[in-house]
């Protein structure tokens, strides 16, 4: 089962040689989310996040184009990122991008896959927009307040804590969240 439509241009081979033991090289590539592989995204989200997403979520994912992607590791689908565009308050020419989910299966973490996806999203926000379309000025997201790993990850990529949202995840034990954001020039 070949994964659908991997953009080979974005496929990179990483080989680390500097420190022992030697890592074996692998292939990473981003792929589109289509009605045909939506099942894989659903499966990923079920495993990665405690939240159950409504059907509407998956409908929107199919319409945001480059702002929702699946990532392949050695041709196996192991992670995904899904964003949605929101109008910026009080402006018709600007909008915000909300990262709803970004996650990689546990065995495939710390291999740079999350960064690869985030880098892709940020690149996309920087692209010039067509006439009449709103420009993305801010990317933001929520992180559970005890998720140190995630906080560190986003800070590394230039995100800053904008506010603490108390009781944001009301159904969980740790219900507070941080809202992180990054302003796009």
């Amino acid at each position, binding site marked *: *089962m070949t994964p*659908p439509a991997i953009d080979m241009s974005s496929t990179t081979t990483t080989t680390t040689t500097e420190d*022992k*033991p*030697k*890592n*074996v090289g*692998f292939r990473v590539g981003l792929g589109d989310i*289509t*009605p*045909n*592989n*939506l*099942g*894989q995204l659903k*499966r*990923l989200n079920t*495993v990665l996040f405690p939240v159950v997403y409504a059907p509407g979520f998956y409908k929107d994912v199919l319409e945001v184009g480059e702002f929702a992607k699946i990532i392949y*590791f*050695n*041709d*196996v*689908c*192991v992670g995904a990122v899904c964003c949605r565009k929101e109008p910026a308050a009080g402006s018709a020419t600007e909008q915000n991008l909300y990262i709803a989910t970004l996650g990689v*299966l546990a*065995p*495939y973490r710390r*291999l740079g896959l999350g960064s690869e996806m985030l880098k892709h999203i940020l690149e996309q926000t920087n692209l010039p927009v067509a006439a009449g379309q709103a420009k993305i000025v801010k990317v933001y997201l929520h992180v559970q307040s005890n998720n140190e790993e995630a906080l560190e990850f986003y800070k590394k990529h230039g995100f800053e804590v904008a506010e603490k949202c108390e009781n944001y995840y009301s159904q969980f034990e740790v219900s507070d969240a941080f809202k992180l954001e990054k302003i796009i020039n």
Partner: protein
Amino acid sequence: MRDLPSKEANLFREILKCYELKQYKRGFKGAEQILKKFPEHGETLAMKGLFYNHLDKKELAYEFVKKGIRHDMKSHICKQTLSGHISLETEELKGIFGWHVFGLLYRSDKNYEEAAKCYAHALKYDKENIQILRDLSLLQMQMRNLEGYVDTRHVLLELRPQNRQYWVAVAIGYQLLGTPELGVKVLATYEETLKDLPSTPDYEHSELLLYHNTLLEEVGDFQVALDHLDTIEKQVCDRKATKEKRAKYFLALGRLAEAEAAYRDLLALNPDNMAYFEGLGKSLGLGSDRQTAEDEVKILEMFKQLQKEYPRSNAAKRLPLRYATGEAFVKVTDEYLRNMLRKGVPSLFVNIKTLYTDSAKEAAVEKLALGYLTSLDKSKGFDNSGAVVEPPTALLWTLYFLAQHFDYKRETEQAMGYINRAIEHTPTLVELYMAKGRILKHAGDHVAAMGALNEARELDLQDRFINTKCTKYMLRADNMAEAEKTAVLFTRADIPNPLNDLVDMQTQWFSLEAGESNLRQGQIGRALKRFHQVDKHFNDYTEDQFDFHTYCLRKMTLRAYVSMVRLEDQLRTHPYYVRAAQDAVQCYLRLFDKPDGSESEEMEGMTEAEKKKIRSKQRKAELKAQQEAEDKKKKAAATAAETAKKAGGNAAAAAAAVKGDEDPEGTKYTKCEDPLGEALKFLQPLQQLAATRIETHLMAFEICVRKNKLLLALKALLKSIKIDASHATLHEQLVRFALAVQKSSSAKSLKPSVKAVVDKHWPELYGSHGQDLNAFNAGFIEKTKTQGSVAHVISAAMSAYLVDPSKNLTKAEELLFSVKEEKFGRTRTLENAILVQKTLKGFKSARQSEWKTKAKVWFPNAAAFQ
């Protein structure tokens, strides 16, 4: 045509043209116009018939063509030939036109026998009619009347010696008759007549020369073939074929050094062709079945060199695993497995399991793979050296491999453990769910297996392969509705009944699986419909070769043509046909045994009241289904009519679509007069082509014994004995044969002549046991005791019961329960355990539930024992 005035004669020419151009309606009108004035004009009558044929009025077609011949013979008319060439000679000849048309008519109905007769009639009036001779030869080839073909082709060659096709056809005829040396002579004579050879590459000439060489090869004198190859080489375009042939000839002639060079040369062209490696090995005197330790070292060394030479060749890496043993095997396999697991090759296990015929290799692979898992868990490497960190997918593919390995050994629990770990590791990988489904299937839980496959399918909806597999698992779980819904996701959507697309596309696996599901559910009519579909596909393949008899001669693709003709002769040995035939025979046997048909397996052993209840339930369901089908048909008809109207096209096709399936239940088959005769029709091709398979003769026995054809039954038994005298089912059949003879004998219906033959062969069948079947059975039990084969135990139990149902029941039951002993572990498969259960049911044994409990311990997942 002289007998028509010029206006009508012109019109007649016009309608011939219409026929050539397939303007049948226009031609038909023209013919009617002529017949208005000359109602008895034979040729026109015949043409009118031909047009009727193409306008789907078969009966009228035959009527008019016959009428045409009758009038044609009375009148003096000129010679006309159809199809391609219309010669308008004015010779006075009788009837030829009509007979030719009659032949065409039969041919279009695939009645080749009658068509050939018509052509023969036509030739009576004109022995040298090229068109008719050609048409006749095509029929002869199609019917494999090879002697006739050679004769006809000789006549044609004499008439047109300047035409290459006619020479070649005679050579082909001789080759297929098994006399390639005559074919060689024909081609040599032809080649001598050629004055100037083509100077530029000429593919047709090249193919002719290579065909000539192939004939020489078939004659078997490789020196001659090699010399010939040298002389033609310059004119041959297919360089690869020349090289392959030369290497083969060198090898056959024992010129090993030259063979080696030739195979090395070929490997440079394609370092993944297994045959080249094999040839190279042979030319080095290696790779034979009986390999010494020294040979092994040499051949592994050879592959090492080749791997260096061709680092990208997969074959060079895989083949050493076949030849290596012991320590060397562990070493090469270790390297191979690591590479593949690191790369992530899903087919790895399928590739490796062929080595498991050698149990030492199986154990070695298992040890290696388990070692990888331990190390990967501990240090992320295949060994604990800590030198390399493998990607996380290495662990994933190792788990996948181990799951398949233990499933292959039917160690369900272990296999499930590994596959579940793999799914937990990477829950998005389609292959994992497929493997899980396969494990569950082997464990006997078809519903859970179907669930796993559906999960896999939903992960990747555009993958036809997984969709197909999923459909198959749904059919295995007897869930026809889901299966049909899933199958049509990948069929044409623009036809009223998308399921029919599967038939049009000759999707045999679907027909077979659906039919077998019907059979399991006791829907004999529906099942037979499916199996007849498969049979029809095979008929179509045979029909399809017709056009190639002319096409290949014209295009000079002779080697391919001959191999196609030979393939067609073997067509029905294909596993799909064999399976369909076996299934169909089983259906017809059941129809014969239980003519009321509807009794499904579940109903066996129920009381009448229970049966009645189930039957009425079935009837209600049927009525409902019928109603639904009716509604659906109406709807489909409406849409079909709509589309047809929109397309403005083919009214006949639209009408056919609207008509739909008139007999979805296949009552045509269940109501057949002679089920055993129908069964024989399926069996006959196998008797001809698969006579070395014991199953063929076992089936033949089942049919013949029911027909009470004792001699034919005897013949089948004798053939089976020759193939495998200790076959389990054969023993039971022997007992049944003896019982049939005894019954017939005591009813005084045994003919003395039959009895004499049976008596003569009796010792071959029953040894020294004479008429004492209990002793015969005891002998069989004694003989097969040490084998530990469940199949043989079932056969012995069945036989004991058949000999005396009341006295031997306890004994038979005891035999079946002996299967619990340790020594039967190897053959105590799920299939056999189910067979024991069915056998007990057949005995109406009181110990059925005891068996179920027993079997459930061995196969906790199997639906059959829940």
